[in-house]
């Protein structure tokens, strides 16, 4: 009796899927469907795939991150770029760059600080969440520079899956971007983030943009930036080569 019921069910399901009443799931069902279907004409708005390209572009620029998203993104950045010198500066600068290059809305409020764009509230929140979700522990060394280390906790292994689940549209773009900084030092991250910020500021303010003006803005950011004076132009060239070019997205960093 049970067997008969199962046979009935298989037969009915197969029929429903081969005729398009339900979505075909096997090649055989699909072949029957394709052989029998009279294809419907696409509505005008779907005749070309422009709507797909536009939607992807819009989705990229409208991802609103929850606290959980922020923690997952932060954890993924640490996972991907955790070199020996990885500390708070590199982390904060990469978070700033990912947010702006990939146009993610982290509801941040960056201000100008010695090492580049800085949002202390966001940083603190993200670090708390990293610990709360058992992704990373934050340990500060008791040496003069008080360097911060991110130590993986029990849930750090799950980060990759969570990242792909929570950032399905953006994950490839974020990974491609982070790969460029895989071996970067914290100083290189600081230079690029600061250059990106001054460049983005000029776009938002609709001011003239030349390499010299960007260098001047960079050096005027903070007296400590003077030590990078010979590296600015090379960094600008590298940013152009790697297509890390701001578009005026986000707020002015002042």
């Amino acid at each position, binding site marked *: 009796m049970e067997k008969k*019921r199962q046979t*009935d*069910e298989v*037969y*009915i*399901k197969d*029929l*429903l899927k*081969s*005729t*398009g*009443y*339900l*979505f*075909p*799931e*096997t*090649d055989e*069902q*699909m*072949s*029957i*469907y*394709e052989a*029998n*279907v*009279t*294809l*419907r*004409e*696409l*509505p005008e708005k*779907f005749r*070309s*795939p422009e*709507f*797909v*390209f536009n*939607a*992807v572009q819009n*989705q990229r620029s409208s991802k609103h991150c929850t606290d959980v998203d922020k923690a997952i993104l932060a954890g993924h950045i640490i996972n991907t770029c955790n070199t020996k010198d990885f500390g708070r500066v590199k982390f904060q600068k990469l978070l700033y760059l990912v947010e702006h290059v990939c146009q993610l809305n982290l509801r941040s409020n960056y201000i100008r600080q010695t090492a580049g764009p800085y949002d202390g509230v966001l940083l603190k929140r993200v670090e708390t969440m990293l610990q709360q979700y058992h992704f990373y522990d934050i340990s500060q060394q008791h040496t003069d520079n008080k360097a911060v280390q991110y130590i993986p906790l029990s849930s750090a292994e799950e980060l990759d899956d969570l990242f792909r689940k929570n950032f*399905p*549209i953006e994950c*490839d773009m974020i990974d*491609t971007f982070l790969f460029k900084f895989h071996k970067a030092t914290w100083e290189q991250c600081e230079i690029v983030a600061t250059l990106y910020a001054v460049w983005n500021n000029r776009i938002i303010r609709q001011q003239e943009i030349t390499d010299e003006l960007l260098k001047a803005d960079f050096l005027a950011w903070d007296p400590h930036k003077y030590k990078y004076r010979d590296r600015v132009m090379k960094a600008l060239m590298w940013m152009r080569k790697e297509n890390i070019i701001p578009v005026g997205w986000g707020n002015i960093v002042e």
Partner: protein
Amino acid sequence: MIADGEYVPILKNISDSQLFALIAAKDDLAHAAYRVLYDRYAQLTWSLCCEAGRKMVRWNKEQFVEELFSQTMIKIFVHPTYDPIKGKVSTWISGIAKNTALDLLKEWNAHTQITVEPIPEFSSEEDESTTPSPLHLLLTQALEMLSDREKDILLTYLMYEDGNKYLPGTVLQELCSRHGITADNARQIKSRAMKKLRQQIQQLEMDK
């Protein structure tokens, strides 16, 4: 600079797998490759969404179908993970459309129920823009012999159940409250409807 559309004639003769590889590379050719793939499969996907998709909702069918098609085509572009070992591209697309439809359905009925009078009916009506195949016609006739309640319950079960996957509790709950029945009743009605449908099909086949 060459517009991506200008690559399309060059890519027209390459295989589906090669197109997917180009889309996955996300380089300059990705859009052009997707255009070719779109030309090959958009109409079939649209037809599937119209036929299978519109039967999944009780109201706002046209909007549901458009949303379903649009989200399916976006997913294909964003996650071009097709593996030729697993079967045909069209079957792979159908799987994506089905999963998208089930996801969409969760919010759809809940959202639209408030504004539209909830008339419990699972329509098997077709629009008149296409001629159904004899097999399709047979099934439609057989389904017409079932009551709206039986059709709704049977097709909702079959939509979700697949191998080890069962009808989610929330969907079952919604189904039961829609028809004012218990979960046990729903299962019995499903079994009865299945049997009835099978008999109807056999009868119709014999009559031909």
